C-alpha cells in the first residue's frame, strides 16, 4: 500500500465519522420540550424541502443516520410549515413530534406524529380557526385551540384539547 493511499483512507474514515455528528445539509436541530431532567433526549434534525409545485415536505432525521425516519407532505402547497418540537412522556418510551402548519387565511393545523422507524403514523390532528399554543406535562399535552368567532364579542371560543400517549411497551427509533 502506498503512503498516499493510506492518508487517503484515514481522511475517508475521519469524514465518515463526522457525517453522523450533524444532520444533513440545510437541516435544523429540533428542540425537545423538557419536562423532567431525567429524560435523556435523542437528537433529532429536521429539513423542510420546497418541491417544484411549491408543496412543502418535512423530513426528520435521527442523529447518526442519513435516511429520514419521517416524511410528511402538505395537501396544499399554500400551507406552510410553521414549527416543530419533539415530545417525550414518562408513560411511553416513544418520541413524538408536535408540528403546526398554516392553513388558509388564519387557521392552523396541528399534527402529532409518532416517531417510529420509517413508518409514518399520525397520532393526533386538529384544525383550529386561529393560531394555537400548547403546554406539556409529564403525562399529557394540552393544546389551546379555538373554534369559530363569537360575533357579538369579537373573540373566538376557546377549545382546550388534551392528548395522552397510549401506554405500550416497545422501544423508540
Amino acid at each position, binding site marked *: 500500500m502506498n503512503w498516499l493511499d493510506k492518508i487517503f483512507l484515514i481522511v475517508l474514515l475521519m469524514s465518515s465519522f463526522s457525517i453522523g455528528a450533524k444532520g444533513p445539509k440545510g437541516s435544523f436541530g429540533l428542540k425537545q420540550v423538557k419536562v423532567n431532567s431525567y429524560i435523556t433526549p435523542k437528537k433529532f434534525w429536521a429539513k423542510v424541502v420546497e418541491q417544484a409545485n411549491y408543496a412543502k415536505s418535512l423530513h426528520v432525521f435521527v442523529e447518526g443516520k442519513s435516511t429520514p425516519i419521517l416524511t410528511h407532505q402538505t395537501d396544499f402547497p399554500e400551507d406552510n410549515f410553521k414549527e416543530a418540537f419533539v415530545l417525550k412522556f414518562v408513560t411511553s418510551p416513544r418520541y413524538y413530534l408536535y408540528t403546526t402548519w398554516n392553513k*388558509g387565511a388564519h387557521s392552523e393545523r396541528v399534527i402529532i406524529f409518532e416517531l417510529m422507524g420509517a413508518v409514518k403514523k399520525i397520532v393526533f390532528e386538529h384544525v383550529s380557526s386561529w393560531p394555537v399554543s400548547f403546554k406539556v406535562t409529564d403525562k399529557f399535552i394540552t393544546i389551546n385551540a379555538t373554534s369559530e368567532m363569537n360575533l357579538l364579542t369579537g*373573540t373566538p371560543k376557546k377549545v382546550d384539547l388534551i392528548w395522552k400517549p397510549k401506554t405500550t411497551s416497545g422501544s423508540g427509533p
Partner: protein
Amino acid sequence: MYKDLSKLIVFTILPLLATQAGYALTMTAAFNPNKTLRAINNQMSGPQANCQTGGITSTSLLNHFDAIRKIVRASTSRGRCQRAVTNYYRQKSMWKDFSKTQRIQFIAQSAMELEKKLRNEGIIKNCQQSIRDIEQIRAKKLIDKMVKKIFSAAYKADKKYDYKSGQRLPSKHFLKYYDDLREIFNRFMRDQFFEAYAPNVPKTFTPLPSGKKVRSRIYQEFWSYTSFHRKTVESKIKEEIYKYFEPFIELNIKRATQKVEPGVALISDKQRKIVGPQMMNGACYEIVKKLHDNRSNKIKFSANTLKMLKKKSSKSLGRYSSFKNKRNPYLFHHKVTKEAVLCIIKQETQSTDFDPHTLNYTFCQTAIGRRGSPKSLAHGMAQMTRDSFVGGRKMGILPLTSIDESKFDHGSQSDNFKLFKMMASSSDMQLEVLFRFLNNRVKAFGKLMKGVISYDQDRKSKYTRNFKRCMACFKKNKSSYFEDSAIKCMGGTPIVRTRPTPRPKRKHPPPTPRPRKRK
C-alpha cells in the same frame, strides 16, 4: 473528440460572440434597443399610484401599524392590552367618523368596482400572454429558417471550392475570415429579419448594402467537421441570434399587447362574467378581431397573429384545477363574486362594525411572555396572517394592482413584510387579497362552499351556515343599487332614497261643446 470540441469553441463560437460585441458597438451610435425599451416601459407603467385610503398616504400607515405593536409590547396584561388597542382605534382609526352603514356602503362599492377591474384584467392578461406566445413562436421559426438558409448557402459554396480539391484548411486560418462572417450576418440576418418579422419597428440605423453572395472559406472549415458537431454549433448559433434579437422581439410583442387593452370594453358585462378557461381564447380572438375590423380604430394586427389566434380560439385552457390554471392569478372563477367576498367580510369583521383598520384579538396574545412578539398578525377584512400572505406572494398567486407594485419584489421577504404592513390600513389591498386568495381556493376545489371552508374555517363550525344564509339573502334582495342589498344583508340601517316624483298625468282639455244646430 475533445480536441475537436475545443477547436469548435475557440474557432467558431468565440468569434461569433465577438461579432455580436462588434455589432453592439456599431449599433449604439445609431440605435440602442435597450434605451427605447426602457422608455416604452416607463410609458406603459403610467403615473405611479399611491396607496390612499381616507386621505392618508402609505407612509403614515406603517407608523400606524408600528404604534399598535408598541402598545402591545408595553402593556402588562392581555386585558389591558386589548383595552389599549381598542382605545387607540376609537381615537385614530381612519374610519372612526363613518357610521356602520356608511362603511358597508363604501366596502360594497369598492368590491363592485374591484370585481369588474379584476375580471377585465384577467381577460387582458390572458390575451396578452397568448399573443406573446404566438409572437415568440413566430420569431423562433423565422430565425430557424434563416439559419438554415445561411448554412445551405455556405454548403453550396463549400462544395465548389473544397470538396473538389479535397483540401482541408488548418484551423489557424479561421480567424482570418472573421470579418467575412460578420458581413454575412449583417446581410442575411438583420435585413431579412426586420423585413419579415417587424416591418413597423422604426429603423433608425443605416442598413448595409446587400446582394452579392458572400463566399468565404470559413465554411470549408465548418463543414469539415462531423454532422454531430455541426448540429451543436448550429443550435448554439441559434440561441445567440435569438438573444441578439430579443429586445426587438420584445418591442414588437409590447406593441401588439398594448393594443388589446381598449378592446375589453367591446365585450358585454354578462359575457365578461362567464369567461372561463373554455372561453378565454375565444374571447381574446373576438376582441382582437373587433379591434382589427373597426375602421374608425387605427389598431391593426398582423395577418399571421390573427390566423394563429383563430386557430387557438377553439382550444380551452383546461380545467380550473389544473396546475397551470390554479397558479394563474388572472384567471377568475365565475363563482367568486362580490357577494361571496362580502359574506366572508361579514363573518370576519362584524364584531368591529366592519372597520378594516382593526387588528384581531390575537394581536394581544403574545407567544413568549408579555414582551414577546404577537402570536398572529392577522388583520383587516381578509384577516390574513403574515405567513400565509408571504407564502401566497412567493408563489405568485397574490399580485397587487391597488398599489404600484414595480417597487416590490415577489420573492423578497422584507418587501412582502412591508406590503403586509401597508395592508393594515388600505381597504383596497385587503379586498384584493381576499378576492385573489379565495379565487385560488375555489379553483382548487371547484366548488364555492369548499373553497370558502378552506379559506379559514373548520368544517364543523357555524361559518358555513352563516355564509349560506348571507348568500341566500343577497339572492333574495336583488336591487339595481348593490349597496342597498349589501346594507340589508349585512345589517345596516337602510338608506331612504328619494324616489323620483311621478310624472303628473296629462290632463286632457275638456271637450269643446258642439255647437247646437239652429233650428
